[in-house]
């Protein structure tokens, strides 16, 4: 953490602006839409400027700003879900059923044995990895992606997600399962090189 981040008085507009590229990347990953991501970041920076007196300096400015941005993203998710409506959500749930059946043999064993991902944590420092990661999240259906982002990026519990999206816990788990499976497959094909081990 830089020294000038630790006092609230130092949170000038210029300093806040330095975080814009990071915040935009974060918002883009989750909102999958340039204008909404830019709006969310703009609102975040404005809210931060307005409320900079409440910034305690206990966390880094980046963490604080990300926290504000998460709230903005969540608001947008709720709006998007409302606009799309329950019908499209149900349709998405139905259409995705059986998507991963090909991964398994009829008796429930793996068709394609999961491979060991080499040195996974090292990938997190790799810029190219995150580009692939982002592309992979864009392959998820819209509602599924939202539920996944709420759970894994915004850190909501499934209860909170169920309430917000008006879905049952079971449907929530199904969507999270599908999101993780699709991410796993995409990363496997496009990043971990498809070097299958085992039988």
């Amino acid at each position, binding site marked *: 953490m830089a020294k000038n981040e630790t006092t609230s008085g130092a949170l000038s507009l210029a300093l806040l602006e330095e975080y814009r590229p*990071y915040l935009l990347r*974060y918002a883009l*990953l989750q909102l999958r839409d340039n204008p909404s991501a830019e709006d969310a970041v703009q609102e975040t920076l404005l809210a931060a400027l307005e409320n900079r007196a409440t910034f305690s300096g206990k966390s880094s400015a*980046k963490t604080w700003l990300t926290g504000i941005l998460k709230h903005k993203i969540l608001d947008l998710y709720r709006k998007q879900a409302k606009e799309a409506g329950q019908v499209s959500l149900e349709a998405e749930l139905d259409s995705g059923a059986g998507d991963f059946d090909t*991964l*398994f043999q009829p*008796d*429930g*064993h*793996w068709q394609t*044995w*999961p*491979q*060991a*991902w080499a040195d*996974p*944590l090292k*990938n*997190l*420092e790799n*810029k190219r990895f*995150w580009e692939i*990661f982002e592309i992979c999240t864009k392959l998820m259906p819209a509602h599924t992606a939202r539920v996944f982002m709420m*759970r*894994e*990026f915004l850190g909501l519990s*499934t209860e909170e997600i169920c309430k917000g999206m008006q879905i049952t*816990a079971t449907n*929530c*788990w199904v969507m*999270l*399962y599908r999101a*993780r*499976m699709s*991410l*796993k497959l995409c*990363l496997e094909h496009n990043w971990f090189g498809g070097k299958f081990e*085992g039988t």
Partner: protein
Amino acid sequence: MLTCKEVSMLVSQSLDRRLNLLEWAGLRVHLLLCDGCRRFRQQMAFIRRACRHFPG
């Protein structure tokens, strides 16, 4: 004995809720015996970790 497919769902759900004793025991036994599902669990753990480490 749970199938790999069932185990894959339970592994995912274990990231979202507390499994009941029966599910938990079934999962444990299966993972003990199945290489593939152990790797799958590591992959799921990695995905969670990746999301928490979004780079800045």
